[in-house]
């Protein structure tokens, strides 16, 4: 048995330590699909170490928002991280918020990043902020319906409770409505993590970038926080997918150290698989025009809705 404080600290460490690695693995896998060699999977760590040694050039136009935004965003993402089951259910801070709270904490992070994008007075920033909020607005209804579909199946929006119940169901958890909800949430995850076809994380072309345009003015240490925050958010979105739909192997807060260690390995495996699936989608599609995105996200909306309807039909209303 590990004390609650230990579990909390462990969870924070895992999120911070693992998220750059997952980004590295995704980049490597992408290179593999594109028949390139690609950088080492540890490249994100090297990049951050390098950035820490650089000056943080700050625009002359900015206010305190620009300096505070990365910190607030990062803190919001980490707080969300304590509400999401990573390798254990019955989280010590599970009482503090549910899936809807997680969505709103991500919204808080996004709000400040987008606010900071307008602070330097550059058109790039404004464009990025506007597009980011636009994509978020399209994602939100689909996301809420997907949450409803999941919550309906389990009878709660509490994430620990969802993971525990689905894990307890075993193979029975695989049902038409769960599959539909998963696909819907997978599309949402593409948008939330800023990947192709919604956004291209490796572009610096003003016509295509969303997230990169927002953070264009950041450099040095501040950029490290922004980047790490984005990577942590990506990890958490993947964790949501993993532990809402495939929570099998997850430990409980009362489990022994061996079970927890096993759960951790299992978790990393699940995240890597989801990451590689994401890469497969990313390499097989081209980036979509911004104004075609409503089509993609209405597909997600429809799937969530179908999931709800399927549940009502299967369970007899």
């Amino acid at each position, binding site marked *: 048995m590990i004390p609650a404080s230990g579990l909390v600290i462990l969870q924070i460490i895992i999120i911070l330590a693992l998220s750059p690695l997952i980004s590295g693995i995704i980049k490597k896998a992408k290179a593999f699909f594109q028949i390139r060699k690609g950088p080492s999977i540890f490249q994100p760590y090297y990049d951050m170490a390098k950035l820490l040694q650089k000056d*943080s050039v700050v625009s002359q136009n900015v206010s305190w928002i620009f300096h505070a935004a990365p910190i607030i965003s990062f803190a919001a993402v980490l707080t969300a991280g304590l509400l999401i089951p990573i390798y254990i259910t019955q989280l010590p801070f599970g009482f503090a918020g549910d899936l809807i709270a997680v969505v709103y904490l991500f919204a808080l992070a996004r709000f400040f990043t987008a606010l900071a994008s307008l602070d330097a007075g550059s058109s790039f920033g404004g464009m990025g902020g506007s597009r980011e909020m636009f994509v978020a607005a399209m994602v939100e209804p689909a996301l809420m319906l997907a949450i409803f579909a999941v919550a309906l199946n389990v009878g*709660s929006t509490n994430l620990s409770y969802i993971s525990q119940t689905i894990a307890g169901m075993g193979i029975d958890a695989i049902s038409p409505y769960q599959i539909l909800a998963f696909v819907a949430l997978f599309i949402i995850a593409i948008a939330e993590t800023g990947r192709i076809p919604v956004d291209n994380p490796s572009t610096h072309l003003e016509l295509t970038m969303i997230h990169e345009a927002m953070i264009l003015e950041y450099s040095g240490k501040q950029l490290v926080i922004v980047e790490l925050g984005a990577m942590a958010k990506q990890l958490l979105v993947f964790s949501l997918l993993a532990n809402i739909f495939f929570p099998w192997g997850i430990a409980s807060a009362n489990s022994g150290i061996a079970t927890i260690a096993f759960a951790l390995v299992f978790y990393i495996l699940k995240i890597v698989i989801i990451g590689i699936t994401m890469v497969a989608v990313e390499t097989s599609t081209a980036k979509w025009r911004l104004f075609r995105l409503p089509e993609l996200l209405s597909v997600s909306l429809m799937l969530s809705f179908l999931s709800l309807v399927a549940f009502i039909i299967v369970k007899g*209303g």
Partner: protein
Amino acid sequence: MSVNYLFFGIIAFYLIGAASAVILNKKDAICAYVSFLSAAMASLLGIIFSISIIFGDTFSYALSGGYLKFGFFIDRLSAFFILVISICVFAVSIYSTGYVREYFGKKNIGYLGFLYNIFIISMILVASADNAVMFLIVWELMSVVSYFLVVYEHEKPGTRKAGFIYIVMTHIGTGFILVSFLIFVGTSGSYNFETFAAAGKSMTPLLKDLAFIFALIGFGTKAGIVPLHIWLPYAHPEAPSNVSALMSGVMIKIAIFMIIRVSFDFLGASQAWWGYVVLALGTISAILGILYAVVESDIKRMLAFSSIENIGIILIGIGASMIFFAAGKPLLSAIAAIAALYHLLNHSIFKGLLFMGAGSILFSTHTKNIEDLGGLIKKMPKSAILILMGVLSICALPPFSGFISEWLTFQSLLLGFNLNNTFPMIILSISAAVLALTGALAAFCFLKFFGIGFLALPRSKHAEHAKEANTPMLIGMGIFASLSLLLGILPFYVLPLLEKIAASFTGNLDSFTFSNFGTFAIASGTTSLSTPAILGLVFIFMFGLSAIIFLIGRKRQPVYETWGCGQPVSTSRNEYTATAFSKPVQMWFKNLYRPARETETTYSTSPYLKESIKFESRIEQVIELHLYNPIVDFVMTTTRKAKIIQTGSIHAYLGYIFGTLVILFIFVIAGGNT
């Protein structure tokens, strides 16, 4: 109960405020202080009085005998609204003492102070009237006084038109209310509200439906429900900002109070379809309100549209509550009602704050156009922080107040699954999806407001010379800003109070369970929320992170120009504009907005050298254009046709009178024969 007679103290203080405003109207400064601080004093008494009613007994008082009986009846529901009015009035009155300095020497402060106090009295009396006749009198008083407040700056173009639309719409609403009340009177034979409740039970279903629909249209007009909202985006922006804060913060909520009163207390919320109608209207108001707010560049108009959105969110809660109540689930009904009441309280506060903020911007820059602002965070740093708190609250971001009430609204929609019935499940989920879209668009809208208005470089001379708001204005906004945060992190103080109020019409008392760290959970559920814990965690991470950043890595922060692809572009002309910022939404919903744009380019010597480009873009107000304009056209053409008989000659009119008399005689004689 001696505390109950505080009620007359409250009225007396407002009357003193009104009277002193008239007496002192030659001395601007003293007049402002006496009349507004008297209102603030009265509102403090109002807070004490209403809380003592909520935790104590109802208060009723018959004023006099005679033919028309006037009396007051204040139960928990009315007390809650008096509480909301009083909280708002307190902060707004303090703000007003500073805000009206703008009008010193230009406008009559006594006139404003008088109307302001009378307006508040009328709202309190509306919430406490115990019979239909008195209600309609004070309701009319509220409408007329608020009309005079809207046209306070009548010399400005557009204000009179706004006032005219407002007074016409509000009277159409009053007409419907009158009909609804007459249906009750027809059954009960009395104008007393007490007898209405009994009549509501014995009426035929058809009469019940009619009474409900007429009341919904009548009060819905005042609340600003789509499609009855058209006066709101005209009237609220034209009124002085302190009055806008009260109109948006409180007056439109009074209509919500009456919708609850009529549908629950008078009619027993017996029909499920009433709930669906309210839910549908709420959902449509929420989404359309915010869609028009997003593309608006006038900050006060944007806030007015956002009020329509928030009224929609409140009605979603009330609609859900009615659906659950009709289905015989008082617990769920109480939770949904609490979500609505919580949002109502929150909206009064953050919208009051934002209107006061808009007032401060207007005060110091003399413009409401967001495209002319920018960089205000450096010129008005204190106002900026307070307004940002309002913005975070209205965007429902944790741990601010809007988050709690939206979270509760989502949870109550999710509770629809306990009904075990396909139709409500589907309807409530769709409503939740639309609400989610509304929330995201609200974030878009207010990000634009704060980001374009306050950050980066000033876009005009107005914004360049902006000054910080004066102290009373900052105090007024500060009260609301702190309340926005407190209502977010202390839900365990607010919820027990709301439980009592919701219990007064849904009959279910214990809707929530409370535990450590300010956690509250929905009774008999597994979902809990603790905003203090969330706030604590965010703070711990923020401090930890700041400490780490401070300690490690390179510390140099050279200041340089904003990146512009190597070109010197650090001027306000290169900034992103508000119109451009909201363009994606405009493109997304172009079928609704039907944007029209005109570009005019003048060339100098050759077609390759442009001299100037003029760009104009407009959007359509669909409802105004396709619903109201045909009605107005019809009325105008019929009256124009009726003009034929208006010859203007006295002989003709005498002839008409004679003719009418003859026809009436024939009618009476013929009638007498049969």
